[in-house]
Structures are given as C-alpha cells and as structure tokens.
C-alpha cells in the first residue's frame, strides 16, 4: 500500500507544515486513518482522492477547523496546535474555499481589508484601504478597480481577490480547494500563472482538483488518498491512468463506457420545436428518440442550461413547444413535466437539486410523494421501500436512509438526485453537468446509469462542459452557440475540433471573450 517516494521529491527546504500520521473520527466513523502530508515552500502539493477519501477533512485540519484525534501537526518543524482558524491564520496558513468568503455587496478594497479596516480618527481611512488593496492585487498582477463591488465580478476574479486578501495577510501557505471547478479554460490558465508566481515567491500550496490534467500542469507532488488512508506520494507528472489506478484502487478500462443496448422501437420521446426565450435562447428545435443520448455542447453562456430549464418547466419561454411522447407540455409547469415523464438533474445539485438538511429517503421521494399518496397521506412504507431499492441499485454509499444527504460525498449526492427520477419512472432525463464535482469512480457509475436508462428505452439529454464526456457518451451531439443550435454531429463525426468550430461559429469575437472572462451560466 505504501510506496512513498517522498525523499525523492522533497526539496532541501524544510516543510512549512506537516500533518504527521494524523487520524480523525466522527463518532464511530474513522475518516482519516494515519495520513502524513508535507507542504514545502514554493511547492504545490496536490491532494488526490475520490470524494469521501478525506481530502476536505485534511485541509480542515490544516486550517484549524478540525483537530486531529491522533498524530501531530508540525509548523516549521515545531509541534503546533491549531484550535481554530485564527490560530492557523496567525501562522500564515490561508484557505481559498470553493464557496468564497467575500461580501458581494462591498467593494474589492473593503473585502481585502475586511476585519482590519485602516482607521484615521476612529473613521475608516479609505485612502489607506485602497492602497493596501492595490498593493495586494499587485502581488498577483490583477488589475481591477478596487472600488468595484465584488459581487459584480466573475467567479474567477472573485477567487483572485480572495487570494490577494490572503497574501495581504502575509499568508505563506495557501490551501486551494477545487479552485478550478467553476472556471473556464482561460480563467484556469490565468489562475495557474498566479500560482506559478506564488511558487516563485516561496508560497507553499495545497491544491485539490478532480481534473487530472491540471495536476501535471500545476503540481509538484501528489498525495493520493483512498477511504481516509494514505495510498502513495508520487510526482505530479505521473501518468493519469496511474493516478486513477492509485485513487480508485483499480484500473478503469474505459472512461466512457457507452453501450447501445436498446433494441425496441425508436419512438421519438422528446420534441422541442422553435423554443425561444426573451434574450437567451433563439429558435431551438431538436428531438430525442428512445434509447438515445443527445449531448448538448457549447461554450459557457451559450444557452444550454436555459434550454434544459425551459423543457423541464422551471423557466417560462416566449414561444415554441415541447412535446413528450407526442403530447405538448404546458409552459413553466414542473409538475406537468414530471407527470409526462421528464426528470431534471440540475447543474447545481446543492442549490437546486437537493434539500441538503433532509434525509436521503426524503430527497429520493420528493417527486413521487403526491403521486403515491392515498387521500393526502404519505405512503411511508412504500416510499421507504422504493428508496431502499433504488439506493441499493445505484449503490449510494451511506449509513442508512435517514442520514442527511448533505453529509454524503458529491458523487453519492448526485446519485441521490438520479434516484429520485428512477423512482418516478422518468423516461426523458435532462442532465445538466451530471458529473460536475463528482469523483472518477462515481463518474463511471453515473455513465453506467445512463446506459441502463437508455437500455430500458429512456431518452437522455446531457449538457456538459467536459468535451471528452460529451464525445464519449453521446450518440449525437448538438452544439449551441449564442442561444441557438449551430450544428449537429453524429457520434462518428464529433471531434473536439468539430465541436469547438461550431461552438464559436456564431459568436462575435468580443462577445465570446466577455463570456469566457466573466461568464458563468
């Protein structure tokens, strides 16, 4: 299990921070079982593992949110206790969370100086505050107006503001928790050049990402975790297949196991005709047959999510029609869409897909509560039985059905959303970024689920920003650009180049830049 090559990687410098053989349990569940990680100045230490492997718990220990039950934390070689986040911040350790800690309604300068506003005669010294902020932004070469409201910036820039804030607090170690998850390609490369600068300044970094290709681009060394255990430490240029093998404990034969097993009649299940909304989508028409997966590709902001939401009855549309099995759906009625057999896995499962504080059982049952009810009373035994069966079938890893869904890993949360529609017998599934923030193992399980749905005669529409996924799983690819469909490609003709050509075809150059710079759907 342990084939550490740590000595080969470690530089001559001493580590800023060491987690030495730490353990952590929540109740009876051991989530970290003896893990050692070193963070060196000027190096990027990647933490790699599936969701639930223990990465978040480890970084929370580094940040002082959790305290290890066993083992030691060393800072500059001396044993340290980090009872809270203030203690770690005082030692120069800062965390850039996925959910940024910024106040959107306040300015960049105010956010950077939050909690330590410079004062003059007891009043806020705005001039000084702007200076501090400009200096901080200068450290990462970010040129934006410090009087701009943070909420008006795109996610990518907000993230950079947060990094600048950390640096102005004299951070010498940054923990970057999936910083690229919500960024476009161009934004990612901007972030990586900032990381490169920081590395040269001697800042130590911990980097978490589910994108294996980013590891070689930005990392120095990779600590691989599995089920809370330390598996190996390998150089960042290790081949992706090997990383996957270490992470999931088995090799993945095929990343996109698309199989076409449906041999029933090719009925058209979903027909969208002339769909238009005010401003966003323009005359979108397509249809999906039983047993088919149709990929919806395009740049962020091309209108893919809007199409999905209009079909699902979430948002109203100005003109056009949506038919399921030949029957027209009324506009903006989620209930009618569900009754017609439409299931919608939204882009942001935490905000739109799940009631995080409610049990798995309840989350699976929401769409079927009223249809299975007798005289307004919940069919409690039936709902539980169905939830149990589907959770078993989808292998949702949990303690029991009463566990709150927010405490599951990303992949299992996503499977819970799928489970809802399987229980509802949905035959038309609208999947919006179905594998976002999901680990490699669970991704394959979700692909297999899509295979099973289509094999049973269902139809799938999948929006994804990961081109390999679109190309690997779709039977046909529709490319959207500037709010309408700019082209259709068969599975055989769909290549990255062909898709990208169509994706930018109708977008004016400057508009495209704007979308890639600031846009997020």
């Amino acid at each position: 299990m342990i084939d550490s090559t740590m000595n080969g990687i470690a530089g001559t410098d001493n580590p800023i921070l060491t987690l030495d053989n730490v353990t952590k349990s929540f109740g009876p569940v051991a989530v970290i079982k003896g893990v050692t990680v070193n963070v060196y100045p000027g190096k990027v230490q990647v933490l790699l593992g599936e969701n639930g492997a223990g990465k978040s718990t480890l970084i929370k220990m580094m940040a002082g949110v959790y305290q290890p039950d066993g083992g030691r934390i060393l800072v500059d070689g001396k044993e340290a206790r980090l009872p809270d986040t203030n203690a770690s911040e005082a030692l120069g350790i800062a965390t850039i969370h996925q959910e940024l800690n910024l106040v959107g309604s306040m300015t960049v300068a105010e956010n950077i100086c939050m909690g330590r506003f410079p004062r003059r005669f007891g009043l806020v010294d705005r001039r000084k505050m702007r200076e501090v902020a400009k200096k901080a932004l200068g450290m990462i070469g970010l040129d934006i107006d410090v009087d701009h409201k943070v909420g008006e910036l795109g996610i990518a820039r907000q993230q950079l503001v947060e990094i600048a804030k950390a640096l102005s607090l004299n951070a010498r170690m940054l923990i970057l928790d999936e910083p690229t998850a919500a960024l476009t390609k161009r934004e990612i490369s901007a972030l990586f050049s900032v990381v490169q600068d920081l590395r040269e300044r001697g800042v130590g970094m911990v980097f978490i990402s589910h994108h294996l290709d980013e590891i070689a681009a930005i990392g120095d060394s990779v600590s691989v975790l599995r089920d809370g255990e330390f598996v190996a430490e390998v150089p960042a240029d290790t081949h992706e297949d090997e990383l996957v093998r270490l992470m999931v404990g088995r090799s993945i034969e095929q990343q996109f196991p698309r199989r076409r097993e449906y041999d029933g009649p090719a009925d058209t299940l979903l027909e969208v005709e002339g769909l238009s909304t005010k401003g966003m989508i323009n005359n979108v028409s397509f249809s999906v047959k039983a047993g088919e997966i149709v990929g919806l590709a395009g740049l962020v902001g091309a209108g893919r999510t809007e199409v999905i939401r209009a079909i699902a009855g979430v948002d109203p549309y100005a003109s056009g029609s949506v038919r399921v099995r030949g029957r027209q759906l009324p506009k903006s009625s989620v209930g009618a869409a569900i009754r017609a057999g439409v299931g919608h896995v939204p882009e942001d499962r935490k905000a739109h897909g799940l009631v995080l504080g409610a049990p798995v059982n309840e989350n699976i049952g929401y769409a079927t509560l009223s249809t299975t009810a007798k005289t307004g009373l919940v069919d409690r035994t039936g709902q539980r039985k169905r939830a149990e069966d589907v959770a078993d079938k989808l292998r949702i890893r949990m303690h029991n059905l009463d566990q709150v869904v927010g405490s599951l890993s990303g992949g299992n949360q996503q499977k819970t959303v799928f489970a809802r529609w399987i229980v509802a017998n949905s035959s038309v599934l609208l999947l919006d970024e179905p594998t976002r923030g999901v680990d490699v193992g669970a991704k394959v399980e979700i692909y297999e689920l899509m295979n099973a749905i289509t094999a049973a005669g269902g139809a799938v529409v999948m929006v994804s920003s990961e081109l390999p996924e679109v190309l690997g799983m779709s039977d046909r690819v529709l490319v959207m650009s500037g709010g309408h469909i700019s082209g259709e490609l068969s599975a055989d003709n769909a290549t990255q180049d062909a898709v990208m050509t169509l994706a930018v075809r109708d977008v004016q150059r400057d508009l495209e830049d704007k979308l890639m710079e600031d846009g997020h759907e």
Partner: protein
Amino acid sequence: MNKVATAAAPKKARGGSQIGRFLADNGALVGLFVLGLALFIATPDFLTGPNLLNIGIQASVIAVLAFGLTFVIVAAGIDLSVGSVAALSAMGSAWIFSQGSMPGWIALIGGLAIGALSGAVSGFAVAYGRLPSFIATLAMLSIARGLTLVISEGRPIGTAPEVSFLGGDLGVIPMPIIVLVVAGLVAAFILNFTVMGRYMYAVGGNKEAARLSGVPVRKVLVTVFALSGLFAGLAGLLLSGRLDSAQPQAAVGYELDAIAAVVIGGASLAGGIGRISGTLVGALVLVVIRNGLNLLNVSSFWQQVVIGLVIAVAVGIDSLRRKNQPH
C-alpha cells in the same frame, strides 16, 4: 406524542447509545425535566394536582399558537400576526354570536374560519405577492388588531356558550388541556404523515430544489400560513372561552412567546427543521418557568429577564450542538 413526532427530525448519523442520542436531540425536554425537579425541591406547591392543571391551562394558548407557527417556521417563514389573528378570530366569533345572532356552533366555526382566512391572506401575499413573510405578517399583525378594535368598538363582547365550553372543564380535566393535546396530535399528524407536511420540510430546507422536484411551492406557502391562522383562531377561542368574553386587547405580544416556544423546541428559523413535540416542550418550559417563579414569589419584572436568558441559552446550546457535527 413524542414518539409520533420523532420521525420528523432527520436522524443524525452519529454513534453513541440510543439514549444518549435521544437526550442530545431533545435538549429542551431534558431542560424541562431538570426545571421540574428543581422546582419540586424548591417548593412543595409545585408538584400538586391543581398546580399542574394550572400549568396545562396556561400552556394551552401559547402551545396552540406555537403549533400553528411551527408549520410556518419549518417552511422557513415567520408569522408575527398570530397574536392579533387570535384576537380577531375571538372577537369575530363573539360578534357573529351576539350581533349576528347566529347559533353558537356557527360562531365557533366562524372564529376558526376567520383565523384561517387571515392566515391565507398573509400566505397569498408571501407566495404570489413575493413579500417577505416578516413584512406580510407584520402588516397582518396591524390589520388584524385594527379590525378587532373596529368590530368591537374597543369594548369586550360576550362569547357563545360553545366557545365558553372550550374554556371550561370536562369532568376533572380542563377543556383547554384536551384542546391542547388534540391540536398537538393533529399538527404532528399533518407534519409527519401528510404529503403537504413533508412538502413543508422540503420547501423550508431548499425552496428551489423543492420546486425543481415538482413540489407546488406556492400552494405549500399558502397552506402553512392558513394553518397558522387556523391554529391562532383556535387559540383565540380558547382564550376568550376562559374569560367568557372576547377582549379587544387579548393576546397582545403572544406572537413572541409562540416564536420562543418554537425555537426553544429546537426548530431552526432557517427552515427545514422543527417538531411539534419540541414546540410543546418549548411552550411548557416557558410556562413552568413563569409558574415556578410565581410560586417562589419572584417579581414579574424579573421573570421577563429570566425568560429572555432561557431563550438565549436554549437556542445557543442547540446551535453549538449543530456546529459540532461534521458538515
């Protein structure tokens, strides 16, 4: 009662014995028990039949108001109007009987209908008018109180005998206690066993996710406020039944006691969490403290200070406990 309602709370994925978990999840109940024990030791007057019945009667109005409010708070709303709606329902009922010369049972049902209708109006304002529930019910607080004064012209009106019956006794058991128990069972049943009840938790937990799962969010919102109004109407009738007259200034400020009872009972103002059993315990905690301090001859001025501290401590302990759980 407690057994019925425990299913509502998402069980925590933690270890420990069943008993330990039960105690941790029912902090207010433990507090109530400790409080009772302390008062039992401090004064011989506490644990007597008449005093306990007295506590039950005193708790009934607050608890019934708080049961209704629990629906709203579970659905992530707030209802500030319950005290005023209680007064309006009682006054409306008395008016129907005395001025409208209707039979007493129509006056009783009329009072409940006025409550439900007032709540439904707030609900419509929240669901379709997109008013924050704080604002919509603040408006209703003023409107309902104003209407109470208008129809009564500022004077008390005698209640129908059917309403007075709610304030009387059935054998040795006071009617308010029976009403309290029945109302609690009905409320717990709605929350746990009806589709609408489960929808309330979903809407309170994540409105958008609920909508995308096909939950009729606006219908749920109108329903919770209508139920809150209905329960407030019942509380108003209880209150006026005990006095045999509807008072224009009845139940002023009761909404604050009701909110306190719900949050002491472990509900979260952020929505998605709350149980009727907890709310009942919360109401009993408030009443037992008042009763105990009265028995111990503590001035009513100091009682308010103590109640305030209890609210802060109870909710503080609860949020600390939640914070210590992973995620």
